């Protein structure tokens, strides 16, 4: 619920994940079809690099933007574990939504071409296998992002929730 109310941040990152999952899946598809070290594999590794950077950036941004909320939650009795669960939920939900959007788009793409030309065999834009492989890779990135977020959460002191720190 909380992640959906952070509309701007959620939509931006969800769409970026969608694009990245497509990019990585498409690169994997190309690598499988043309197994040579070339443009396809370069594209694949670039997508992975951007993916890991974006995952860590998202985790960092969530904790940074919500540091006062995190401190307040600590003040009112939330443990670090409770807050970690909340932030992990933020991160994983966004990734899952990105995955579902790309699967939806691929299904609709295939369905559209079957609809306009039912007799010819439909070639999917990307097969589902590379999409699932990509999703597994991205889940691994999210674990790294969650670990980073957990470290940042530990550093947020409840005293930040109070306006005047110290004397």
């Amino acid at each position, binding site marked *: *619920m*909380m992640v959906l*109310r*952070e509309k701007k941040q959620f939509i931006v990152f969800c769409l970026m994940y969608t694009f990245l999952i497509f990019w990585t899946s498409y690169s994997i598809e190309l690598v499988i079809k043309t197994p040579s070290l070339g443009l396809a594999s370069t594209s694949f590794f670039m997508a992975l690099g951007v993916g890991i950077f974006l995952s860590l950036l998202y985790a960092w941004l969530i904790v940074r933007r919500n540091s*006062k*909320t995190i401190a*307040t*939650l*600590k*003040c*009112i*009795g*939330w*443990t*670090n*574990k*409770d807050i970690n669960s909340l932030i992990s939920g933020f991160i994983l939900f966004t990734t899952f939504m990105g995955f579902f959007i790309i699967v939806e788009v691929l299904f609709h793409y295939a369905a559209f071409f079957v609809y306009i030309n039912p007799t010819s065999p439909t070639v999917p834009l990307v097969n589902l296998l590379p999409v699932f492989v990509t999703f597994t890779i991205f889940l691994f990135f999210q674990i790294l992002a969650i670990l980073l977020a957990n470290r940042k959460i530990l550093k947020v002191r*409840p*005293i930040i*929730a*109070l*306006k*005047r720190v*110290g*004397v």
Partner: protein
Amino acid sequence: MPVDKDTMIEAIDVNKEYRRSGAIIRALADINLTIKSGEFILIQGPTGCGKSTLLNVLSGIDLPDSGKIIFDGENIARAQEARLSKLRRQKIGFVFQDFNLIPTLTAIENISALLWPTVLREKEIENRAIAALRDVNLLERKDHYPVEMSGGEKQRCGLARAIIHRPRVILADEPTGNLDPESEKQVMDLLKQINKDMETTIIVVTHRGSLASYANKIVKMDKGAIINIK
């Protein structure tokens, strides 16, 4: 007057220092203070006298450099963060000067948030939140976001959040600092009502002398030390 007069919080020889730009500032100097259950206490003093630091130390939000804080029979001066979180969730309610409501949650969700990590069912949490909103006369605002509420309403929402779990102690750091006189009276009357009806110990940090009539004990501080208790 509250019936129970057992010791709720006891500060024994508490000291706290800060380092600021190379200089050492003594925020708390040999503080000894006993707070009985059911008391309404005002901590007063000029800016920078250490009153907020004392409040933070009493609640386990900040740790003293030396001394003991006995909270409901338990020394929390060296307690682990997880233990302190549990203590705050069970026994302490916080009221902040700038409300600290989560902007993306409605009033009822802000109040319920305190109980989300507990084993209580959603319906039970909602019922408690509604009861807390009714206690602070804010039920009609339950689905409003903080941005849609006035300062006084936000603070009453914060107060509802502080009482949803029926704490033993409510700690308020300048709770009326951002309020107009009318809202200030509403909030202070509510704190007094909670103190009377629930026998909750109330500790309010303020620099406003006009609030003295609400308290049954006033602690005056200056330069990190308690200079007077009456």
